[in-house]
């Protein structure tokens, strides 16, 4: 798959107008920095903590199932799972706090302007993109090569869904962790609400992140298959990025800010190491995807037949 992948990339490069690329590439810095190392580390820790939270939380939600009881035994019982769950939760809360700080920095740098091109705020173009894709999905219109800015509509949607989700999970999780403290300030039924929402929100987050949204767009989307590498090595060839997200590229050329995001590609030795790492991560991701997908299919089936 690795060779097929590089095949796609070289073909894309050939298709790209050569002049545009030559003008942009400065010295050896031929790559576009898609994500900063801060963003990649936060993503890494969220990925790890999310997986741990799912693996230690789900068996409790489905405690009447034989598989859940067997799995709970493997990870050392409820008490152990609870400790691991809370530890992973602390990692995720730390990530959330870091991101809030990061948003603060963005807000200050942009002097309070958090919307506009290149931000996470949805705009009319996203609506048009979604409509164009929907037309293609049902076979009414040919494949629309989207003129994307930094973030596509499906990335913005996921960002806001995940933000709402992580807020709900953190708040309800804290209530369930310290119910006596919560009851000092809130009525007891809030603990019931926290239970329902933590449990339902977990399933929602898991289905959304793993099966129906994030995994698909990062791994199985035809344009990204088998994995968008930018989240782990930070960048991708400039010509490729200009092809994938022309609006941001053109905007940066116009504003003269392209230089800020150019980086040198990884050395061949580093690349080799990262490729091994890439195979491990992709393998683990696809394995988890299959397991979690089967799980969500099973849950949905049970939910449907309960009517």
């Amino acid at each position, binding site marked *: 798959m690795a060779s097929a992948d590089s095949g796609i990339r070289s073909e894309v490069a050939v298709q790209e107008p050569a002049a545009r690329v030559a003008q942009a590439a400065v010295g050896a810095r031929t790559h576009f920095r898609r994500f900063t190392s801060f963003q990649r580390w936060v993503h890494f820790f969220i990925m790890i903590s999310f997986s741990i939270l799912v693996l230690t939380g789900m068996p409790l939600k489905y405690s009447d199932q034989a598989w859940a009881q067997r799995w709970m035994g493997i990870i050392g019982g409820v008490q152990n799972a609870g400790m691991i769950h809370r530890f992973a939760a602390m990692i995720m809360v730390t990530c959330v706090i870091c991101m809030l700080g990061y948003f603060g920095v963005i807000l200050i740098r942009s002097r309070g302007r958090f919307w506009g091109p290149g931000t996470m705020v949805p705009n009319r173009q996203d609506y048009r993109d979604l409509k164009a894709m929907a037309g293609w*999905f049902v076979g009414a219109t040919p494949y629309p090569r989207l003129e994307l800015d930094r973030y596509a509509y499906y990335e913005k949607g996921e960002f806001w869904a995940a933000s709402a989700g992580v807020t709900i999970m953190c708040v309800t999780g804290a209530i369930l962790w310290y119910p006596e*403290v919560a009851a000092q300030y809130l009525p*007891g039924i809030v603990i019931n609400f926290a239970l329902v929402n933590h449990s339902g929100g977990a399933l929602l987050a898991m289905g959304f992140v793993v099966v129906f*949204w994030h995994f698909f767009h990062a791994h199985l989307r*035809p344009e990204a298959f088998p994995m968008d590498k930018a989240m782990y090595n930070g960048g991708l060839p400039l010509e490729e990025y200009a092809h994938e997200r022309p609006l941001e590229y053109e905007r940066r050329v116009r504003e003269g800010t392209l230089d800020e995001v150019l980086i040198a590609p990884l050395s061949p030795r580093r690349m080799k190491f990262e490729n091994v790492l890439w195979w491990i991560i992709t393998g683990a991701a696809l394995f988890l995807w299959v397991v979690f997908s089967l799980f969500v299919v099973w849950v949905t089936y049970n939910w449907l037949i309960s009517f």
Partner: protein
Amino acid sequence: MSPRRAVLVVLGAACLLAAAAAPAGAVTFTIPSGASDQCLECHAKPDLGTVNVNGVEKSLTVSEDAWHSSMHSRLDCTACHAGFQPREHTPEETQGWYQQAKLTACSDCHASEFKMYDKSFHGNLVMNEGSKEAPACGDCHGSHGIIDPTSAEFRESVPEVCGRCHGEKSETYLDTYHGKSVRMGSLSRAVCTDCHGSHEILPESDPHSMVSSQNVVATCGKCHENANSRFASFLVHVDRSTPHSSLWVWLMEINHAVLIGVLFTLGGLHCLLYFYRGLREGMYHRG
């Protein structure tokens, strides 16, 4: 007979009488050993049965293994089944025992528990109102296979035992963190009896009940140090599938069902169609 000899005879008779009377008082270990084996000669047979006074078929089989591993295996059968003779039993023996002695059989040794039970909701129903449904000792503790009530095995079985009559309560309990943890083997979490009591159990409406509004905070406080009345108002037995249990919890549950249904459907369609069109247009094997 000389007066001296007469005194000796009287003394000897008194000793014999005392020895004979002692077992009837409290401890019954003096019943000749081997009697249980004698009983099991018939009662270990797998198909031994009868029809009781209520016309219900009843097995008379006693599992030898369960009996030998039970708490009472040191006792003889007649320690509880007082007055039974080793032959085909008469209706007087069996009916009398079934209706009354099954309680007093336990109270002889477990007097303090029986006193608590006598004043409890269950005990009142059985002892004073003659209820046949309310549980007597054996209904919760079992009989021939009786196990140590302080054992992990017994604790683990509590939700199931209470659930035989209080099925809905047991189910809603198993939907809470307490219930889920206990079901997964974390026995330090609360089971039914930790909050409701056991022998002394009383309904919520009784002020002496462990879960009455007067006592419930202290009951929660056994584990949750800083529990207050708001904490205690947490709904333990809430059925999430119906609005009659708690309207708000149900609404929240419905909200999640709708959210999951809509988002999974839309998200699933988006992925499936994207994937399908990508496959059809050969986008997965370019180059």
